[in-house]
């Protein structure tokens, strides 16, 4: 929708813009590449659009980043995608909303080896692992190192662990975030040789 320049307000006179005074520039023109000049400043097409080739412009494929389980939810939702019956979608959505409404926070104790007292945090406040780990780092003044599936947390003498529903001590980060939130009963930041033992590849 073109922005209507209203003569009454005389916005043009007070507008800051590039270019010598007296010239008028229509913002719309910039989106149409001219026939002679190549536009160097094209926005980087996301992976999907590039690979889509000659797609119709009716489909806006969601801008999903590469396989990071902590990537943010897609902003552009494609109509009718993923192909799940509305009935099923509505059921799951209703359940999710219920869980969110009912929940007054998932508070878990956090202990750190060597620290004199424990803390408590609400897991619901964080939306993914990086946020949680940053909060723990700030709370206990330590650094957690680089996570990899093979080796756990590398480059630090600390390892974040949690006790799950079955009573087992697990390394934080292995399972999808939602699953972790549902199964975490308490957190423990292990230190020293114990931590290294946990994070070594078997």
């Amino acid at each position, binding site marked *: 929708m073109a922005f209507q320049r209203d003569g009454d307000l005389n916005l043009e006179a007070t507008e800051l813009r590039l270019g010598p005074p007296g010239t008028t520039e229509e913002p719309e023109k910039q989106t149409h590449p001219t026939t002679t000049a190549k536009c160097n400043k094209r926005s980087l097409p996301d992976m*999907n659009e590039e*690979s*889509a*080739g*000659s*797609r*119709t412009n*009716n*489909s806006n*494929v*969601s801008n*999903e980043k590469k*396989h990071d*389980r902590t*990537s943010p*939810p*897609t902003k552009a*939702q*494609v*109509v*009718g*995608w*993923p*192909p*799940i*019956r*509305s*009935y*099923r*979608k509505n*059921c*799951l*959505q209703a*359940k*999710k909303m219920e869980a969110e409404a009912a929940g007054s926070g998932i508070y878990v104790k956090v202990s750190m080896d060597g620290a004199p007292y424990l803390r408590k945090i609400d897991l619901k406040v964080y939306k993914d692992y990086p946020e949680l780990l940053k909060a723990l780092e700030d709370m206990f003044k330590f650094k957690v190192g680089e996570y990899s599936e093979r080796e756990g947390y590398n480059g630090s003498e600390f390892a974040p662990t949690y006790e*799950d*529903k*079955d009573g087992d001590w697990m390394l934080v980060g292995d*399972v*999808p975030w*939602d*699953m972790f939130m*549902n*199964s975490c009963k308490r957190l423990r930041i292990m230190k020293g040789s114990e931590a290294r033992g946990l994070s070594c590849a078997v």
Partner: protein
Amino acid sequence: MVSLCSFISYYWEEEKRMNYFPDEVLEHVFDFVTSSRDRNALSQVCKSWYRIESSSRQKVFIGNCYAISPERVIERFPALKSIALKGKPHFADFNLVPHEWGGFVYPWIEAFARNRVGLEELRLKRMVVSDDSLELLSRSFANFKSLVLVSCEGFTTDGLAAIAANCRCLRELDLQENEVEDHRGHWLSCFHDSHTSLVSLNFACLKGDINLGVLERLVARSPNLRSLRLNRAVPFDTLQKILMQSPNLVDLGVGSYVHDPDSETYDKLVTAIEKCKSVRSLSGFLDVAPHCLPAFHSICPNLTSLNLSYAPGIQGGELTKLIRHCRKLQRLWILDCIGDKGLEVVASTCKDLQELRVFPSDPYIGHAAVTEEGLVAISSGCPKLHSILYFCQQMTNAALITVAKNCPNFIRFRLCILDPTKPDAVTQQPLDEGFGAIVHSCRGLRRLSLTGLLTDQVFLYIGMYAEQLEMLSIAFAGDSDKGMQYVLNGCKRLRKLEIRDSPFGNGALLMDVGKYEAMRSLWMSSCEVTLGGCKTLAKKMPRLNVEIMNENEQTDFIFDDAQKVDKMYLYRTLAGQRKDAPDFVWTL
């Protein structure tokens, strides 16, 4: 069966010799032939077989309610007792078909009633069913026994009340995934006290409350009850009482399963479940406290079918513990929170698995918790697998090639990568080779859905190898008309083709117009076909309904042939243009 017919018709070359068998004998022989396909084949052998078969057929299947008029069906099959009807196109499930498109069952019920058809069974899928239809149905057929509604809409619990009250012989009321307006519980009370014939009752999709006492009494007076699926409003202790009354249940859908594991009711439930030695199918757990699942471990070893796809509360250790007990499972519907590791447990436990469906537990986030690894694990552990629906985060050609080698018996293969144009996660190549391996290896493949980065090449493979393919679903795939052309040329048995957001245009659409009369339907949305192309097709093929759906209210749309068509649905029909189409649907 088809080969038997050809043999017989070859052997008895002249029609005169056919009449050596009196009609009654042939009819008796035909009684043993039950599938619609086989009966269709029988009716094509010769004129007298057509006559005898048509006059004796009791069970009819109509894949598209607009392909034929109810009057014509009644005329051809005077002995009609049981009918299955499908309405909206498949993509209606995903909100791609505008709400008021059609698929009304009322005219059918009204025609059956008017012609005094002895209707006993009605099975509907994706149709609009009004309370008036249900009311008319309940009053018009004295022997009505079975009503199955799948993915339907338009009715309320008032309609169900009419069915309950008036269908005195009702044995089966099966409501699967319908959108029902719930006017609160009283419909169940409408079953008469003398109604003792119920065999199957499924009301899991109803959202409202149920009168629990009425339910318990209904179950208590239904000695033949074998299938019962409860909704969320039925709590744990009612479940326990019901199971005590019905130890002969074969199929159970648990409603709400939230309770205190230390309670007396829990112990009673364990006892009740242990008595249910016949349960083979388990579903539901619409609300669940997972640490109480062990109560069901005693029936797990007998289960052949398990549907936990509406139970996001069952995860991790509790889920795998449950599955480890289910060694005889043939059908499993599950959410992706089972993870690849959980699928490995399935693969090592469920050696008889034939059908697997893995649904995304959070479709809005665009992230699935399973990958190609889970699929590969299943394929190597479950050699009998023939049907799969798999929503996943990513896929690779190598994985698909391995799956194809492990499971050459696929009949249905539906893969959905949540990011629909994602390439091979390792090589970044298109997934053409992977799907090519699937169609090449699985010679019996009848249904296929594709996603991922796909070029025209995959369609070349499909056209070449997928000889038995009947239904193909395409989304965000292909490069040019050639893709669709390969499919139309190669897949001789194709019946249903549905395509969205793919660059196929008039060249492909018009390549072989006669083909569409050999198919049930074609759906194309957000593709490159134009109004002009559709008009050309409609003109050449008068026995097709070519419907264009345009919701943009552009009144000059109809005059601009170069305009791309947003949604096109075409289907063969003997009924001509339908009279109930809404304003935004044009039949060309």
